[in-house]
């Protein structure tokens, strides 16, 4: 049996309204937690569940929560990260758009667990219409007594607000998000101090992804142990995957972690296979920042084992032959797609989004963009490929925040697996210049170098 814990009811007519959501069993976790559990009991269930952060890094949520400093007389904050700007990722949007009360409910139990009395949802500015949906849902929750003072006579108070960004990928990084929420430019802070000690307005703060917070609802309802039964190994529970690219059925799917990539990509229940009868060329399984996998490493690991949708299996082989689950942004490329063009496009994105504080990131992304542009447009030289390799290696690990690494990995993995294609752009510069928007009609590149 395949279980769905988050978006199973997303299709119920009117589920975005409080009335229907409540009728379908909504807000039970708040009743349960406030009536029969202490905040520490909730943290304990989350620890038992094995839930890992769904924003990309996969850090154990229960552990993160237990790091939160609790100095006397200082407010603590829970911030929901709804910035969702990683290319290929559109799952949080789906959840908030269709079933907004699930996020509100999760915010209430999670805030209770952390002892936060004011919490904020920070949502990317482009999702302004979803901000309005959330504002409506929050108003309904206040009306029904799930927010405000002395919730359900428990003595617990919580105010919840939603606030927009304004178009900056970097504000998804947790310390940049905090800066932005303070009404400033989104420049990441140097860590330590970590937000758990000094976050919003200098107070202890937890930042969690939308999906992470939503997952706390079934964890409290059914218990952490029940949640941990789903999944495989240290990848417990379900995960939202947003699938896009050259597949039959792009969209948002909730899977049990441990599902095989083969089934996810080819079965009709999920992606439905490749579009237009084309062949699979490559896949970026976890949002633009994670390494690209050539076709022969997508459904199988280098050892020939079946590749699974889990933190461990997608990373199997390390950066040599693996990738990462990341944010769950699953991007699929068919045989016509040009890896050099895609890499150039992503690098332009990171250059555009670099906040500019550290020179390896600011200069390195710009430099890589330039070199990739000339390669893609048939003006590159053989040495450019090695130059690119050098630049990405100099960025990785040398920056304040992980955006630098996120910019380096796609370049490194593209060169590692598709070097022949980069060389083709140098050797066949005429052909390279003539292509229509970089499309390759020949099947030249299907077989990436291992």
């Amino acid at each position, binding site marked *: 049996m395949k279980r769905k814990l988050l978006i199973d009811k997303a299709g119920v007519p009117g589920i975005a309204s409080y009335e229907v959501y409540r009728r379908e069993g909504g807000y039970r976790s708040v009743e349960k937690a406030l009536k029969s559990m202490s905040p520490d009991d909730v943290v304990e269930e989350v620890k038992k569940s094995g839930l890992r952060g769904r924003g990309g890094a996969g850090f154990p949520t229960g552990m993160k929560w237990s790091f939160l400093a609790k100095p006397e007389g200082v407010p603590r904050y829970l911030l929901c990260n709804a910035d969702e700007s990683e290319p*290929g990722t559109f799952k949080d949007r789906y959840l908030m758009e269709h079933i907004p009360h699930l996020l509100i409910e999760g915010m209430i139990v999670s805030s209770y667990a952390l002892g936060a009395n004011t919490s904020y949802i920070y949502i990317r*500015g482009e999702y302004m219409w979803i901000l309005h949906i959330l504002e409506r849902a929050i108003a309904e929750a206040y009306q029904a007594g799930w927010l405000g003072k002395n919730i359900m006579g428990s003595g617990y108070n919580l105010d919840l607000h939603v606030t*927009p*960004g304004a178009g900056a990928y970097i504000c998804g990084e947790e310390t940049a998000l905090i800066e932005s929420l303070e009404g*400033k430019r*989104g420049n990441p802070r140097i860590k330590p101090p970590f937000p758990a000690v000094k976050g919003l307005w200098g107070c202890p703060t937890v930042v969690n992804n939308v999906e992470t917070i939503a997952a706390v609802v079934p964890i409290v309802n059914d218990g952490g142990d029940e949640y941990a039964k789903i999944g495989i190994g240290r990848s417990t529970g379900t995960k939202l995957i947003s699938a*896009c690219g050259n597949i039959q059925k792009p969209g948002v799917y909730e899977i049990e972690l441990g599902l095989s990539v083969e089934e996810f990509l080819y079965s009709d229940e999920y992606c439905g296979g490749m579009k237009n009868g084309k062949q699979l060329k490559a896949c970026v399984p976890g949002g633009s920042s994670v390494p690209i996998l050539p076709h022969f490493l997508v459904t199988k690991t280098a050892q020939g084992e079946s590749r699974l949708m889990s933190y461990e299996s997608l990373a199997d082989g390390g950066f040599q032959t693996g990738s990462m689950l990341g944010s769950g942004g699953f991007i699929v490329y068919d045989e016509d797609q040009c890896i050099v063009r895609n890499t150039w496009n992503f690098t332009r994105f990171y250059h555009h989004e670099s906040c500019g504080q550290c020179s390896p990131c600011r200069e390195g992304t710009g430099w890589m963009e330039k070199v990739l542009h000339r390669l893609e447009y048939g003006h590159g030289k053989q040495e450019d490929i090695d130059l690119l390799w050098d630049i990405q290696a100099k960025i990785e690990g040398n920056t304040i925040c992980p955006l630098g690494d996120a910019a380096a990995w796609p370049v490194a993995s593209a060169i590692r697996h598709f070097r022949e294609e980069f060389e083709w752009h140098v050797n066949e510069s005429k052909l390279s210049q003539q292509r229509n*928007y970089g499309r390759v009609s020949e099947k030249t590149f299907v077989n990436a170098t291992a």
Partner: protein
Amino acid sequence: MPDQHNHPESQLQFSDETLKLIATLTAQYPDGKQKSALLRVLHLAQLEFGWLSAPVMDYVARLLHIQPVEVYEVATFYSMYDTKPVGKVKLEVCRTGPCMIEGAEKIVSYIEQKLGIKDGETTADGRFTLKTVECLGACGYAPMMQVGEHYHEHLTEEKIDRFIADNA
């Protein structure tokens, strides 16, 4: 309503409704932290005044009791804010990878040809502005563009034609 391109100091005033909303927004933060409402207030300012000119930003600074430079810093950092005049209708077409492989580049060229402008430009009548933007979280419904608060997904040339005709 002040015109799109000039914001004479004396005419700058949010509508009563917006002023009420701003009071609610600033109350969402602890005392002395009203600056946190800045990003939202700048969105509202752009909606009401068309773009963020220096007088508009100064007005916002006065409202939130912060220095004008604190507003300029933010307005120039975030890509959604226009610190130069733009057309009445701003077409923001996503150009990032997943949209690109579904034909975003062709869509951009098509709009450029149709409107006779390049990326970043505004038509002579001040009606349309074209801007390419980065991933908007609609990758599975590509290609796409955002206009105001609306997402237009699975874009085709016919859809563009219709949209431009409806908004000309």
